[in-house]
């Protein structure tokens, strides 16, 4: 147990150091978490969570059970008030049968993000980049496996990831990359090799928080529901 804790501390220190060091010569890593830690009942590394988000198999696993806005995790990183930066993460998200659900990946301003999520309108408060996967009435869109973004409280679909006939075909270990331009309040998202440019911020402003939210996802509706390798970087 003690050994395991020591290892955890060492891992955390290592990750934090990585945050402030340059990586690969061209990019400055602002934040990086590969979740390569022992399985635990919390995600760790200063990720705050609500609901059952755990560390399992070196990834952040959302143990979904049809809850509202839960599980969800959030973490802050050095504030980006101007310029451009890039966020990428791996998504291992296999839907089996869920029809009404949503999964949100958000970047926003910690000073404006509310402590609690109570109503749907709270999802957008303080949020700039607001990517959404889902379907049914929660995103007002069919089929159930759509991907898009949210702006002004409305879901804007970009493409259908999977429909009910081909449910398990697309999102396994996909890499999502978001190129954010704080000055213009826009971003481009690249997903499965396709890029969607010039998407508008939900709310324009500085960015210092990354948040992942599951909403209405049932345990039987998904065979996989985890994320991995979150990297936030900017050009040197």
């Amino acid at each position: 147990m003690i050994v395991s804790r020591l290892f955890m501390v060492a891992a955390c220190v290592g990750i934090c150091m990585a945050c402030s060091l340059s990586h690969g010569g061209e990019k400055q890593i602002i934040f990086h978490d590969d979740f390569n830690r022992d399985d635990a009942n919390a995600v760790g590394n200063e990720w705050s969570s609500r609901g059952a988000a755990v560390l399992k198999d070196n990834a952040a696993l959302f143990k979904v059970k049809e809850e509202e806005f839960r599980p969800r995790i959030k973490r802050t990183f050095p504030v980006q008030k101007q310029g451009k930066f890039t966020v990428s993460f791996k998504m291992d998200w296999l839907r089996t049968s869920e029809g009404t659900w949503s999964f949100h990946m958000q970047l926003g301003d910690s000073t404006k993000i509310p402590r609690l999520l109570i109503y749907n309108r709270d999802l957008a408060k303080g949020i700039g980049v607001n990517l959404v996967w889902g379907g049914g009435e929660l995103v007002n869109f069919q089929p159930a496996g759509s991907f898009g973004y949210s702006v002004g409280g409305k879901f804007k679909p970009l493409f259908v990831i999977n429909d009910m006939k081909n449910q398990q075909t697309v999102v396994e270990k996909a890499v999502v990359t978001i190129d954010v331009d704080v000055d213009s309040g826009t971003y481009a998202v690249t997903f499965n090799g396709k890029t969607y440019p010039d998407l508008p911020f939900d709310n324009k402003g500085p960015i210092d928080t990354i948040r992942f939210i599951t909403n209405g996802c049932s345990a039987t509706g998904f065979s996989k529901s985890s994320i991995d390798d979150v990297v936030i970087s900017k050009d040197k």
Partner: protein
Amino acid sequence: MSKTGFITLWLTLFSTCAASAAETGVDTKTFEELVQPVLHKYCIDCHGPDVQEARLRYDQVDGFRLSDRHLWTMIHQQLSQGEMPPEGEPQLSAEEKKRVLAWIEKEQRALGAGSTRRLNRREFGSALQDVTGLKVDFAYTIPGDSKVNGFDTGAEALQDASDSVSQMMEVTSRVVQSIRFLEPPPSEVLKVDLVNVEKDPYRQFEPWKEKGIHLEKLPRIAKPGLGALVEPKWPKDRSDNLFRVPAPPDRQGLVRVKFSVASYCAFPEVPNPILWVKIGGRVYDRREITGPLDLEYEVQVEDLLVSSKGVSVSFVPRVELPYRVKGFENEDRSKPGQFPDGAGLFRPVWDKRLLKNPEQQPRPFVVLKSVQVEPHFVAPWPPKQWNVDLGEINDSPQSAEKLLALWMDRAYRRPVTVAERKHFLAFYKQLRGDGWTFDNALRSTFQAVLMSTPFRHLDSTAHEDQVIADHAVASRMSFMLVGSPPDAELRELAASGDIRRPDVLRAQADRLLSDPRCYHAFIQPFVTQWLEMEQPITLVDDRRGKASYHFRRYLQDSMREETYAYINRLLVDNRPAREIISSDWTMMNDTLARHYGYEGIEGGHLRKVKLRKDDKRGGGIMSHAGIQSMLCWMGDNWVIYRGAWTARHILNDPPQLPPLEVPELDPTAGDLKYMTPRELMAYHREDKNCAVCHVKLDPIGFAFQNFDISGRWRDVEHEFYIVDELDSNVAWRGTGKTRPVDTVGMLPRGEEFRNYDEFKSLVAKEYQDDMVQGLMKNFMLYATGRKPDIDDMAEINEIMEDHADQGYPLREMLLAVFQTKAFLEH
């Protein structure tokens, strides 16, 4: 012609009789020179155009108006008690304060009473029953009255409006069509006697077919010497009709149905049957049948659902309580894992092939001894039971005048002058001149009487005519306590002028309080309105608590009745006010006993029961399941509702209305679902608009966390509660871990408590005077129709001082209200 004549007559009478109230005060100069500057100097910052604390705004007040009477009473109270301006703010000089208080008092007295009002719906219906001698609910179609401070007796809300007058016109038209003078009865009386029938009692009804009666599910079991046995129904069994009566012509008029009944069961453990009588789809009666009884229903066809086959008459005994009988197995409809034995629907089962005779069967029957029907009933008037000797009544002006005199005397609830009668007699003669029959002309004249102000309004007890004023005292007391016009004894005392003598007033109020009618006519409506008991009682299935409510309707009624019967008992026994808060007894019947976990209480009637020492609820109305359950709605905001209710009705410290812009707190939304009640309240108070009230209400509301949604005691609460549906019933189910109930809180003046018991002790010790004052204000409003003003409050305080040493005995306190100037001189 006749209609025009009627309307002209009515308008003339209405305009001459209607009370005119002065709208504004008299001393506007002092207001402009003194009071208005004081308001602007000391009050406007917090109660002006920019800020309206407590929703009060004084910059628009332009004098002492009748409609502002309560506002000025409040200002007077707060100024005189030094509550306003608040500490730390600039204060009025002694001279300013003295002059402002004097101005308010002077203006209020100059403005007069303003308590003349029309009868409310209940009183109007009762007065119509009294004048006709019929039991018909004539006022059924009149909408409920607006309320003042929650009460339907407020003069402010009971003024004539065009719609209320037109509704009364329609109702009174039906009333006079229900009586006859010289006309023969329009239909014959149909009667079936079943006592001596040997078998197949349904065959006795065969002759009714020829009279147009449509026979349906009639009783088939005869018990010679007793009558026909009607089999009981169980919860969720559908009702059957005995028969359908053809509707009167134009589907208007009355149907009269009479039953002579008794109960029968060979097994003492079986509960008494509850008889439901529905006519035309409307429930007219629901009562426990314990012995022989004659039941009579006079119903207006206009109020009923009428099918092509006529008006349905349903007579259904029901078993509304689960029971066991020694020697019989119990049926248990529970599903595996749900509603284990001991709860749910169960009853003895037997083989109907083996136990064919009723005396072998463990179930209660209602015995039907006779049935009587009058398909089109028009009552002879005056009613026989009045024993009035008018001599021979024939088609003559003298007979008409005698009948009119009797009608008016009864309708006006006081002697009628010749001058008053003259208008109506002239109207009658005019109709006869137009060719109307004796009966029809008299009906229209009677209707005109019912539409005149002296019938529809309660006179002022300060009326300039002493005879009218004295009869007004009798009327107001009688309507308040027994819900009907004064009886002969009261009228005699009013006529002799003795009614105002303190000993007479007290004796009469005491007599009426002891009248059996008082329970339904005063206790029920007063307590319902005082404690806001119109709210629905929520009963939900609780699988963990092993309770289901197939018997919910009877339980819900019993839960309400507990509070009515408790307050009634406090008044009957003249108990101290403290027992409203805390006692060692309650009123219980078989159903409540089951709900509260008491044994050995049989029968549906409520009786006084001493509480077990281990019953943590203890006595007092706040421990009643009906009260705590009605303040929950699917568990939503228990703490707030319970806190606000207690502040309003027990602590005499009503909270402000919630601001419009604050969204309702939904404890099932998002993250709120995962909060404890205390965290939830803390979150709600983060909004400063909400915090103003909640900082006071929430700590009170926590005192009641030991009461679950059905008003039963619980020691633990669950992490989460979810709404579920089971067999089409709503279930409120606790899930997740349990934790001890959190009952720590604080009373408005800072007294802290850790549990319900400490809370009740503190309220009884520190807030009894507040509660009694609040109750007395309500008694006063109910009796006078006015919110108590400065002088009324002084009288209330005097009554309280007189009775404080005795612990505020409730009957004495109420009796004292009838001796006040507020009651006698307004």
